[in-house]
């Protein structure tokens, strides 16, 4: 199972970025072989609009099952939900801390977006 973390770093000790759509990148952790892979999100970081939507689609295409981030708005959430990706919101500082909390069952799945959209 693949879990995505919003971050600018390429290792597990990197800081967790609180933004989803405009995260600098995603660190994908594979629980099966404990491998990590970094996906740059530069294109969406600089997008005029719809960064969350596109980021969510990209994670769906990458075969991710869960995403751990700070906040997630309604459009991104709806795409993630459609792609079958569970969202976990946390304010933990690093990817490693968030991964540990997730594996210990300390994070609960988000039931919806925790931020309002930009276009309401």
């Amino acid at each position, binding site marked *: 199972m693949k879990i995505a973390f919003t971050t600018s770093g390429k290792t597990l000790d990197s800081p967790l970025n609180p933004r989803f759509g405009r995260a600098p990148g995603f660190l994908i952790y594979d629980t099966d072989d404990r491998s990590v892979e970094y996906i740059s999100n530069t294109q969406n970081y600089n997008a005029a609009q*719809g960064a969350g939507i596109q980021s969510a689609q990209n994670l*769906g295409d990458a075969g991710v099952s869960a995403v751990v981030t700070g906040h997630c708005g309604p459009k991104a959430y709806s*795409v993630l939900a459609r*792609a079958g990706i569970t969202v976990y919101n946390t304010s933990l500082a690093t990817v490693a801390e968030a991964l540990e909390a997730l594996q210990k069952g300390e994070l609960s799945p988000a039931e919806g977006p925790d931020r309002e959209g930009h276009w309401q």
Partner: protein
Amino acid sequence: MRLAVASGKGGTGKTTVAVNLARVWNGPVQLLDCDVESPNAGLFLKGETLATEIAGMPVPAVDEALCTGCGICSAFCEYNSIACAGGTAMVFPEMCRGCGGCAMLCPVKAITEREHRIGVIETLGAGDITLIRGRLDVGAAMAPPLIRQVKLRASSELPCIIDCPPGTSCPVITAMKGSDMVLLVTEPTPFGLNDLELAVETVKELGMPFGVVLNRSGSGDRRVHEFCSSRGISLLMEIPDDRRYAEAYSRGELLADSFPGLRDLFAGLRAELEKHFDS
């Protein structure tokens, strides 16, 4: 003839110039309120509503039974207004520009276009003035499609004065485009000058003839005068800074009706513009 009244900075007096110019026009004239996010020309005109129409724009509708989730539509959309997830496309209509590219490219014809409401267009009659006003719905983000529809309502048989939104971005350009001339309204302040310079660059880029109207002249400084004379830009009219004008404006009065001196000033501007169009 089509005249656009624009400005870089907001609150310089575009609407004041547009409605008063319409008031002193000889004969029937159309006034298009293209500041669709806050149309206010109607505040100065006492008239009756002749028509109200719902305005929309085309947005994609996905037939999920046909959609294969191939992603061609979302890859094409520059504005991320269509995404593919869980095997089908999802549409975010409020972000769509209505280009129709997704429907054209869909290999299985799963995308059709439907009308998505963005606002209303109201037509009011007030004496010789026909006001055509666009009003964007709260929450609708795309002004240009509504502005285009307001402009389509205008008859080419009658002169047309377009009250543009402020700034220099897409809504302004959509409103100005196709006009024979642009009046740039500004004020003698550092902000007024800075934004006038941006507006001048914009109209020059569009290759449109233009002139400047200076509002609240006598206040602030002389830098707008100096800018215009150094660039060879026509300063077509100066509205003096006068508290009485602001008070009349705040009561919704037309300056050309309340102050004979200003009526003459606007009539002089009209004559100047007519000379420009006759030559």
